[in-house]
């Protein structure tokens, strides 16, 4: 029924126009109003097979929440989302919906899928303005430690609080949120939203110990012996940035995206009078094609630089969210596809002056299913630049893996854990980038949520 009364066209979300938004770091997407949200939600066909929900890593009951939005029952809709997703205001903004829920939407076969992400964001923002949070259930007397306050840690903490556990989160940085505060820029995810979500959890009893580094300030085993926790979740996240191994990759003017973004997002280096400096650059080259590469490119534009993204495959293989690519292009970021850096050129002061790349062509699909790029002999070319940002992914944070006795880790330092987060140590669970290497916010949240269930089973089994 709903299908017939709905419009075919997806409602576009209002956004700040490119020429204005590259002058600041304010949020680009402005969100639906109530009328638009209801109208967009009415486009849902309420398919019996629920393909959208199957595409969601945390199994949000999408058709139910959409039908409540259509009816104007926004708080009820929020409750449905919230029951499965600890951070809807975040995921509504940063999830790659086109490969998940919206990618499975039946409306997308012939036309455009329902804007599920935009509606998730809408109900979360509506709740922040008008809603009230349920109080935490009574404590069951069991204490669990969560290491890391990023997406996996917060999702795990949230699920544990719902089950009655007393949760303490240990955070290495001076601010809670992990990649949500140091990695994702303000214009994509305002830090006020992260602060609000963390505060919502602390108001439900979650304790946070900041400036505490696992494997350094305390050993994982001490969380049991000294601090009296019964189980530990390790959500230590991404670690050392990857580089290409090129000559002069440690020259002045070459940065990891992690460093560049941390200076901007965590340390607010873009603000007037900030104490943390940012390298002044006129022409930035970003190497990579993921969301992090887009974030770095768009930050550099806002800092006033000309920006070129160098990616070794073609546009079709770009792993970034489509919206980020689109926004980057609108903001004047140039792309050099099928190009792979082979050398970094420096001046007498060891400052970057150019990056040498070679043209690539796509061959047969490789193990990842994407067509493998092959260099074209003799096709080298130079891009002059004073700043190169490497956005090539990260390996898992090395500290915990190196320090916890008996904790099995893989060849890249990733913590070995099963589907439910169980590690080689009893009572120690893990999830997110610490286990998988660079992935998405929502996959990390899914892992944290599953681990919470496994922790509950583990503690109950001990009783």
């Amino acid at each position, binding site marked *: 029924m709903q299908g017939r009364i709905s419009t075919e066209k997806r409602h576009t979300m209002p956004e700040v126009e490119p020429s204005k938004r590259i002058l600041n770091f304010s949020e680009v997407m402005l969100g639906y109003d109530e009328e638009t949200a209801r109208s967009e939600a009415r486009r849902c066909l309420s398919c019996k097979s629920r393909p959208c929900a199957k595409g969601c890593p945390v199994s949000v009951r999408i058709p139910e929440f959409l039908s409540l939005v259509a009816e104007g029952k926004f708080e009820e809709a929020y409750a449905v989302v919230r029951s499965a997703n600890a951070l809807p205001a975040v995921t509504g903004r940063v999830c790659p919906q086109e490969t998940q829920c919206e990618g499975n939407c039946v409306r997308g076969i012939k036309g455009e899928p329902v804007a599920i992400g935009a509606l998730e964001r809408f109900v979360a923002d509506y709740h922040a303005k008008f809603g009230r949070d349920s109080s935490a259930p009574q404590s069951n007397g069991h204490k669990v430690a969560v290491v890391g306050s990023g997406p996996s840690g917060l999702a795990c903490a949230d699920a544990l609080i719902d089950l009655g556990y007393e949760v303490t989160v240990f955070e*290495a*940085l*001076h601010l809670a949120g992990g990649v949500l505060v*140091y990695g994702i820029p303000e214009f994509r995810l305002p830090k006020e939203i992260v602060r609000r979500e963390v505060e919502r959890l602390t108001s439900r009893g979650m304790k946070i*110990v*900041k*400036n*505490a*580094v696992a494997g*350094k*300030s*305390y*050993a994982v085993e001490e969380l049991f012996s000294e601090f009296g926790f019964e189980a530990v979740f390790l959500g230590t*996240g*991404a*670690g*050392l*940035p990857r*580089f290409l*191994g090129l000559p002069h*990759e*440690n*020259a*002045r*003017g070459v*940065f*990891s995206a*992690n*460093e560049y973004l*941390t*200076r901007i997002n*965590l*340390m*607010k280096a873009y603000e007037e009078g*900030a*104490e*943390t*400096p940012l*390298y*002044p650059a006129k022409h930035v080259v970003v190497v990579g094609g993921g969301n992090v590469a887009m974030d770095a490119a768009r930050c550099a534009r806002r800092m006033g630089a000309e920006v070129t993204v160098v990616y070794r495959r073609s546009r079709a293989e770009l792993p970034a969210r489509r919206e980020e690519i689109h926004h980057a292009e609108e903001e004047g970021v140039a792309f050099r596809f099928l190009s792979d850096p082979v050398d970094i050129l420096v001046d007498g*002061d*060891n*400052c970057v002056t150019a990056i040498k790349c070679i043209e690539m062509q796509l061959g047969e699909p490789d193990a990842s299913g994407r067509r493998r790029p092959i260099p074209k002999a003799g096709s080298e070319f130079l891009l002059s630049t004073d700043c190169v940002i490497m956005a090539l992914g*990260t390996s898992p*944070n*090395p*500290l915990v893996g*190196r320090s916890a006795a008996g904790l099995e880790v893989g060849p890249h330092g990733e913590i070995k854990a099963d589907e439910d987060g169980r590690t080689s140590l009893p009572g120690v669970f893990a999830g997110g980038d610490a286990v998988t290497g660079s992935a998405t916010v929502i996959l990390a949240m899914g892992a944290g949520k599953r681990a919470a269930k496994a922790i509950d089973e583990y503690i109950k089994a001990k009783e």
Partner: protein
Amino acid sequence: MYLILKKERLTETLIRMEIEAPLAARRALAGQFVILRANEKGERVPLTIADSDKNSGTVTVIFQVVGGATIALSSLEEGEGVADLVGPLGLPTEVEGLKKVAVIGGGVGCAIAYPVAKRLFGLGAEVTSVIGFRTKGMAILEREFEEVSSRLFFTTDDGSMGERGNVCLPLKRMLEAGENFDTVFTVGPLPMMKYVAEATRPYHIKTVASMNPIMIDGTGMCGCCRLTVGGKTKFACVDGPDFDAHLIDFDEAMGRLRTYSDFERAARERSCNLYHMEVK
């Protein structure tokens, strides 16, 4: 907030602070560092732990006032607090089994060399210390070094205290006289550590330099502190800060340290201008 229990001006630009930080103090060892922020808007500043006491839960740092962040830090007084302090970070200095060592410190680096000398001396090693400064007025920790050294040499650039010249002079003399050390530790400005490494290289004496690159998180996330050691990229915050001085690419490290020098100079000038305005 982390309470400043004691603040002491060692020289015109060097300040020692004892700060209450039980979580950082409980496992701190010589060679490790902390990162602190003076205030809520402050930069994250890595500082080597000069001393720590797990019973009283305190960490002592010594820092030189060089830029915006250290100016902000130096403006805090006893009874006030720093917004954040995290640690201990990095790997402790390896002291296992060492019987005869030389500890070579230069300038503010002596603050970092001191806990290493103290630890080794405490473990029964024969410790020869060489500490050097620009001039007598900038000397620090002379008495402390005396207490933890079997032999102690001073050098100053202008000869106002000890031998005139740099720390390599006494070291080279000892090496030429045929003295051997299990390990030579060196902490100080990069050019000095480079010279120390060159002095010991012909004698194949293991030489360890404590690196102090630019950092942000200090936990192996941002990659800012990377350096080339033996042709490989290493991260000072998690692989160091101690590295084999004979393998470090010091020239590259010196360049990287200057990455933000324009910015730091500007911050210094800004705060000096503010100061002048207040004076008027």
